[in-house]
């Protein structure tokens, strides 16, 4: 398969993730959509690594994997803290940081 096909799939997944971040209101699902976007970037990185026949792009993908895991950990911690303080689990109602 051409590398272009992989890149197209990656773009499609990234777009779906971005649309999800914009439309959903539960922070859990927003985090999931962020995962989608990171995974799309991963797919593009690995496709480019294959295109150049150079495994260094795969290292990039692994680092992105690590960063995504960290982001999930902290994000879920924030959600649990929100639940503990009985805040609404809804990104539209949490606007204290809007200034």
């Amino acid at each position, binding site marked *: 398969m051409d590398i272009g096909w992989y890149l197209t799939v990656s773009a499609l997944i990234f777009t*779906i993730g971005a649309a999800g971040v914009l439309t959903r209101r539960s922070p859990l699902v927003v985090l999931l959509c962020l995962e989608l976007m990171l995974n799309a970037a991963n797919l593009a990185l690995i496709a480019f690594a294959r295109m150049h026949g150079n495994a260094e792009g795969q290292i990039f993908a692994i680092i992105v994997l690590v960063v995504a895991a960290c982001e999930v950990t902290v994000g879920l911690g924030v959600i*649990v*803290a929100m639940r503990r303080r009985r805040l609404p689990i809804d990104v539209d109602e949490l606007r204290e940081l809007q200034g």
Partner: protein
Amino acid sequence: MAEVLFFLAAIGAVAGAIGVVALRNPFFSVLALVSHLVSLAALFLLLQAEFVAAAQVVVYAGAVMVLYVFVVAYVGGADEPLGPQAGRGLRIVAAAFGAMLFVELVVALLGTGLKAVDSNGPVVQAGFGSAQQIGELLLTKFLLPFEIASFLLLIAAVGAVVLARRRGGLTAEEDQARYSAMDMLRPAYTGTMAEGVGRRAIRPSPPALQVGTDDPAAEQEDRAEQEDRAEQEDRAEQEDRAEQEDRAEQEDRAE
């Protein structure tokens, strides 16, 4: 053969992604993401990234998703109405933005000057993307990013514990004034039997620091009671002491 596999995996990945965005219940969203990740791992395999595919399945579809499922179960993944509250206009704008982004990305990708995009990529040697090659790269050329990533993981773990622990973390403003640095490091009863059985601290402490019932009003009452009792005891002690002194004085005088 590769084409069939590619289209199967790609359809699976895109369907999983749509499932994540479109399903109402967060729990099913998580399951859709798991299927998406497995399909994506198949795509990685087609691109000869064996190690990344394995890491994807083990780390993501295994560990991270289990964490997600736990949090969804804890928060109570109630069905979220998908639409109208935020306004229909916003959703249409978001969809239009998404479509625009997709068109833009595809134009950028396929209209690129990179000729190799239209090829399968060069022929690679047998060990491409194997654990051996990745390990070698990580421990030689990319040693610094590797170490930084390990520190990042450590910091994230500590941050998650601080954020989500039972007491402390995010507290009300008036409580934060009462914190000392030692309280943040180690509350007085950490690791004691009292904590193990869920009893409250003997020393009165800020409400967010207390283990125990979920009802803040009840907790406040309890604390008030404790303080009252302590005051009464103090008073009783003072009276006792005064009496003893009086008696001693009388004895002195008698002598």
